[in-house]
């Protein structure tokens, strides 16, 4: 396939790095305590079970220790973060009804334009809540539900109670506990039996405020024989102070369903991106995580698939580009619990200018997962000597009918290729971009063209930074 190479935005260097004046109609004080959690719950007029869930989660958060492995998180100042900020009075269905600052933000990022061209629905979260949401009418007719989690709490309480926090309980880890205590926003999607949503649904997450925490919570349920492709994008302006993004994402792919979840993560480098993502694939279901990480200062993210029904498939295709000062600690978990389940992990990382990337993978084959198959391919590219890449694969295999393989490779900057590209008239930074883009070809092929063009542009920008 021919991929047009976008150059249009190359001169406007940091497309996503702009700050709008803060707009807020409601906001909690800095820091976190029970009172802050009660205020969030009050602002949302929640039922008592949810308020209790939050308070219980907060107690777990307080008890849980910070992770003892992985990147240093000691600089996160929990007392100096704003945990809830409501930017608008109500959610809108038309971009024009949003406050000017917010509308302009999404215009500059290009969300409304994408919506018109190729998306089945869009949700836009600004700070703590979803400010805009819209979906094609025919999907509404087919019974598809696509709304923000806060609304879903009120309108689809029964289904929420059945699935919410069941895959990722607050006890899972400290940041899942924090999210459970202060969560706000995120997407809720239900795809009814037999419904195939052809165009993607997209959620766009924007942090504009400084020293802020975004804690959205996403729950996707694909009922039997259905399919959906969900895309999330995220950006923020760069501040010198740290912000925190700690999301929780739970996905259920019921029998024969297919869910693809694509992430284009381009947070500014002052953001700690500590995300817990887990999916359950039932009989003959497929869950695909397509995960692109360009931004953030520190990312810790290891999306998982519990392959709980026979013939279930889990796929993880990810890339991480760690530039100066960034630590991208990513990976995948494939938990095989039933027979003939299969998983496939492709992880590509690029480190440059002292950037650090880690791959942590876990493949578990249970006793019952007879004839399970798992294949991991883990490739790293180091563009200079100061940069780092580490791979930590773990395999836990409990039956001898499984086929499990792991391939890893590491390559440094190929001077022959660099010379070849430059001798064709590519600048050094374009030559590097070209190499990196070739290296991640398996990923760019999997994401919608509009985003692969965007990814190419982002990588070009990162390479330009490195040449200076």
């Amino acid at each position, binding site marked *: 396939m*021919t991929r047009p190479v976008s150059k249009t935005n190359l001169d406007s260097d940091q497309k996503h790095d702009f700050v709008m004046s803060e707009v807020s109609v409601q906001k909690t004080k800095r820091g976190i305590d029970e009172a802050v959690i009660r205020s969030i719950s009050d602002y949302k007029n929640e039922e008592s079970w949810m308020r209790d869930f939050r308070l219980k989660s907060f107690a777990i958060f307080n008890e849980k220790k910070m992770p003892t492995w992985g990147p240093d998180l000691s600089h996160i100042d929990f007392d100096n973060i704003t945990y809830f900020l409501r930017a608008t009075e109500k959610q809108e269905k038309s971009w024009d009804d949003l406050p000017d600052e917010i509308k302009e933000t999404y215009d500059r990022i290009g969300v409304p334009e994408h919506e018109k061209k190729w998306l089945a629905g869009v949700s836009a979260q600004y700070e703590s809540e979803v400010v805009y949401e819209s979906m094609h009418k025919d999907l509404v007719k087919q019974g598809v539900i696509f709304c923000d989690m806060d609304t879903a709490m009120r309108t689809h309480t029964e289904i929420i109670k059945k699935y919410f926090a069941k895959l990722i309980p607050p006890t899972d880890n400290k940041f899942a506990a924090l999210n459970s205590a202060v969560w706000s926003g995120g997407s809720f999607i239900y795809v009814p039996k037999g419904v195939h949503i052809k165009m993607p649904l997209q959620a766009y997450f924007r942090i504009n405020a400084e020293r802020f925490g975004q804690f959205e919570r996403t729950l996707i349920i694909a009922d039997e024989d259905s399919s959906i492709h969900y895309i999330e994008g995220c950006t923020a302006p760069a501040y010198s102070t740290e912000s925190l993004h700690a999301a929780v994402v739970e996905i259920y792919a019921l029998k024969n369903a297919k869910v693809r979840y694509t992430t284009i993560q381009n947070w500014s480098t002052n953001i700690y991106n500590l995300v817990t993502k887990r999916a359950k694939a039932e009989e003959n279901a497929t869950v695909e995580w397509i995960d692109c990480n360009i931004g953030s200062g520190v990312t810790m993210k290891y999306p998982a698939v519990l392959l709980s029904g026979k013939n279930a498939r889990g796929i993880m295709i990810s890339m991480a580009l760690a530039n100066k000062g960034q630590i991208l600690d990513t990976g995948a978990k494939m938990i095989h619990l039933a027979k003939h389940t299969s998983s496939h992990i492709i992880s590509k990382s690029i480190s440059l200018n002292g950037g650090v990337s880690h791959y942590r993978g876990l493949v578990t084959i249970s006793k019952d997962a007879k004839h399970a198959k798992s294949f991991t391919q883990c490739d790293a590219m180091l563009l200079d000597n100061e940069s780092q890449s580490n791979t930590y694969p773990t395999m836990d295999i409990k039956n001898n009918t499984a086929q499990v393989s792991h391939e890893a490779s590491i390559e440094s900057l190929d001077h022959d290729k660099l010379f070849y590209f430059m001798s*064709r*008239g590519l600048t050094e930074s374009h030559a590097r971009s070209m190499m990196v883009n*070739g290296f991640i070809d398996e990923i760019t092929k999997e994401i919608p063209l509009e985003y692969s063009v965007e990814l190419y542009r982002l990588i070009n920008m990162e390479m330009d930074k490195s040449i200076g």
Partner: protein
Amino acid sequence: MLSLKNISVKAENKEILHDISLDFDNGKIYAIMGKNGSGKSTLARTIMGDPRMIITHGSIMLDELSINDHTAYDRAKKGIFLSPQSPLAIHGVTVQQLLRTALPRDTHPSKKLLEIIAHTAQELEISKDLLSRSLNENFSGGERKKMEVLQAAILDPRYIILDEIDTGVDIDSLKTITQFLNTIINNAPQKTIIFITHYNRILSQLPVDEVIIMRDGTITQKGDATLAQKIEFDGYK
């Protein structure tokens, strides 16, 4: 004019080329011949600006100005092109993407560029599907070399250096390449082409003006096209 003025070149801490002087006039066709290890490819890479070829003495002059300090990119933009001896396989990059990035949009809008690429590929009998596949990945020797010629044609340089364009190429492909190059020579008589080769086979089909013989990093002989024939019969002395 492209000139080498008394250049000596080191690679991996070893001097490979010793005090070489050569002039490449506009519009002329050159052949550089010599045994393996005589320094032909080093010479080509030095002209193109491979940073691993270190000029310890002398200069490369392009239109009377030294380009010693120019990167390969600068030299490409000034109209020098090198088809390497063994074109690399490049995963995930197509020839279309490569040329799209190499050429400016204002002179080569994408649609037009794709048409030119398709047209040139047709003339070179390059199968269409190779244009949108990873460049040279699982390509035959002939396909790789044709892809180089295709790029040379589209990038439209003033000086084309072809390092063993005839090696690893089947007879039919070689015929196609030779025909295509003759068309370029006829249509753009101001272009300079430098062939590096072991064989007279391709040279006999081209209007070669000057044959240069290298040995142990020096120039040992120069002559007209008949020199290449002589070499083929008698070998290098």
